[in-house]
């Protein structure tokens, strides 16, 4: 009898533990999404549930945290339903910290130790939408590029309107194609100098390594000669004529280079491998 009582007590203890553990899945202060839905307008909830962000949360089995995963613990808000008691509009910095609870570093590397956007207090919601309504652009951006980036980087976006530019916007180059906005580390950011890594991901034939590189350990990489966002000059060069660009460094041209003749006013027509050559130190051929 004593053994039966002990077994029964053990069974009750296990059952009770299971119940208690099941109830304590959420961290302290978190109430669960169903609690949020008791008050908040169904249309808002419905709109949110149609968006990819919610669907991903559900796919990862985190449906209970669908609301508080971004808005923070809701216990205080449930007790006193005031906006000040929950993370909402105007608290983008705090909400951004919640984003990182799921979206940990996507790519590691020294750049992630202190990326430029973080150093300048740019938060997740400064660029990304909240996920409550359809995003104008992927991935859940508050605005399409380059208009999004142009809110701060106005000058760079303006350069895309020059006569010779990377075609921006539709079917063109987006800001994120060259500039990893979270300072992700890629193969090219590791292999190339900063002035080249943004370019050679697409311009792979300029990636090297070259037996005869040009410019040789240039200070700014591609930007030594090109205006990367746009230029009034063909091939997005920083100067109107090629020879004027080249002569700023190469002042010691051979004497037979008669600069009064048009052929010698376009250096790259003969020195065609101007980005580097595997076989010719004079850069005549690639």
């Amino acid at each position, binding site marked *: 009898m004593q053994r039966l009582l002990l077994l029964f007590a053990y069974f009750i203890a296990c059952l009770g533990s299971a119940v208690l553990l099941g109830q304590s899945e959420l961290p302290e202060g978190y109430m669960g999404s169903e609690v949020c839905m008791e008050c908040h307008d169904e249309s808002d909830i419905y709109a949110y549930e149609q968006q990819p962000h919610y669907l991903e949360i559900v796919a990862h089995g985190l449906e209970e945290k669908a609301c508080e995963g971004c808005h923070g613990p809701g216990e205080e808000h449930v007790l006193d339903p005031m906006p000040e008691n929950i993370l909402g509009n105007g608290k983008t910095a705090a909400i951004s910290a919640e984003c990182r609870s799921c979206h940990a*570093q996507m*790519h*590691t*590397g*020294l750049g*992630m*130790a*202190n990326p430029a956007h973080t*150093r*300048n*207090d740019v938060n997740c919601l400064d660029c990304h939408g909240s996920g409550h309504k359809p995003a104008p652009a992927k991935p859940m951006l508050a605005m399409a590029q*380059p*208009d999004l980036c*142009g*809110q701060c980087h*106005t*000058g760079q*976006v*303006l*350069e895309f*309107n*020059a*006569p010779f530019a990377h*075609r921006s916007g*539709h*079917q*063109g180059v987006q800001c994120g194609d060259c500039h990893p906005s979270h300072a992700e*580390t890629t*193969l090219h950011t*590791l*292999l190339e100098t900063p002035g080249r890594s943004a370019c050679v991901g697409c311009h*792979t*034939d300029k990636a090297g*390594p070259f*037996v005869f590189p040009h410019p040789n350990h240039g200070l700014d990489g591609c930007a030594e000669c090109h205006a990367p966002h746009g230029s*009034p*000059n*063909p091939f997005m060069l920083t*100067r*109107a*004529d090629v020879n*004027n660009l080249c*002569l*700023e460094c190469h*002042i*010691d041209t051979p*004497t037979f280079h008669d*600069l*009064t*003749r*048009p*052929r010698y*006013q*376009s250096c790259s*027509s003969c020195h*065609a491998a101007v980005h580097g050559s*595997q*076989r010719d130190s004079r850069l005549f*051929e*690639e």
Partner: protein
Amino acid sequence: MRTLSFATLFVFTCFAGHVATAQDNHIELGVAFQDEDGAADQFRSHRNLDEGVYLANLALDLADNTAAFDFFEIASHGFGAEPYGLFDLKFGKRGVWTAAFRFDRREFDYAVPGATWPAAAADWNITKLRGHFEYDGWQALRLRLNLRETSRRGDRGQAFYGLGLPYALNRDMDESLRSYGIGLETKTLPVQFVLEQSWSVYERDYTYRPHLDGEPLFEEGENDLVVTNFNGGDENEAPAMRLSATYASNRVELAAVGMVRQDRLRSERNELTLYELGQGNIGRLGFGHVLDGDADRDTALARVRLGIALAPRFLARFTGHYRDWSTDTTSIGESLLVAEGNQTDFELPETVDDRGFLDREQTEAGIELEYRHSGLSLVAGFASAEHDLNYRRSQDDAIYDESRETETLRLTLAWRPNKQLRLRAGWSEDDFDGFLFRTDPQAHDRYWGDLHWRPAEEWQIRVRAASESSDREAVLSSALDTYGATVVYGKPKGPQIQASVGWVDLASNVDIRFYVADEQAVDTVSFYESELMTGSARVIWPFGERVRLELGAQLYDDDGASAPLRLTSNDVRLGFKGPFSLDCSVFAQRWDHDRQYLEDDLDYEITRYGFVVGRRF
């Protein structure tokens, strides 16, 4: 190829209407007219723009209704009245495979307006084809295939001196590069490896023909050039292997790449040039070469970068470069002196057997330390390099053997007290020991500064300055100062204005020495000076959602003593978004080119104007 491109464009435009499920495509055609005043040939030498129809823009984003691929993108512009044309094609299945092709062509047309020597003209084109295939469907590896073909074809004039007089030749160029490569990239290992193997073949064929019926240039002479055989070519095969390894974590970044390459060059040269002496009444005298040449070069190249976060605010970076290439050359055959007279013919051969070599080795190592705290960044760096060069042109020549060592110090300071202001400044100094070429500098210094300020949300101001100098006592001195400012006003969706101005002051003196007859040396100075001022402005002004005005102006004014010139270019474009997804714009561009060191008849004023119509679908 141009016809094929337009045909492809037409087919895909029709195809787009059939299969496109994404309504986000665009095609624009432009028509340009041109008013030319002055040396239009000079303008074509610089830009080679002409009147006519051209493809302003083609952007197709097709979604296939089958399971074969889920993106199909076409982008193209140029061709027609523009000297540069580009065609891009990308398609594939995201996450599984992608294919990309690019074709571009650039045409050059050089003339010498007003010259009495038309043989100085040149006319050629450079055509490039790139292909890339990537398979990403495996878990552990990614496969890449590349092909590349570049060709240059055309002709150009060339001076040729014989029997004390200049003659003109026309050279037909036919040069090509074909390159194929395969690469494998690991995806799941902690260290990412990329192994690539490529094969390249370079081919060049050339033929010379006498110009002006073989008559000497500039003056009448009694000896006309008769080129009976003047051609040659070479072929270079080059296999190469490249291995790169990268690793990144929160504390460490490592990137290393190595490459080995073999170039095997075989060349042939067949020349026999004859001159008709006394317009053929005396006989013929000529010189010839029949040569076979080899050049075998082995190249080894390595580069490594290592970054370590020593502490939360303290980073260290190490870099290393190594390059070694050695070339063995041979030239075997004979040179001929040929005389053909009315009574006697003879040839005087001389055997040619030259064997030489060219070896170069470069090594460089550097260290950089960075400290960051509260918007402040300080970087200090040191690098040391050595460059060895030794060569001999033939076994009868002395060996040239020199080394050059470099030490570089570098310091950079950046400060960002708030989101609106950023200041950067830097200094670097290079010291050299030893000289490979007589004009190598002995020291080089550089200072630079940069300020970026956002006084208000719509405003950005940037000011920059740099100064550098190179010198070598009694041989070389040069100084370059640059400074400028840029102001930007505007926000997206609203008016935007950008204006910038800059100055470049460059002066260099290089002592040079000519050797004239009897090896008499003449010392002189090669002097180059540029006092350049550049200015540019651009305005974007939208009027509602459908009308947009763009204005641009650029000034390039060099008052230096060497090649003073003044260039201005202006452009205006007015665009409309019309009904039925139609877009149209009118544009005008103007170039004023005044090379003040040349005669006025080499200047030009060109106005190009026209319209562009397009449709979104």
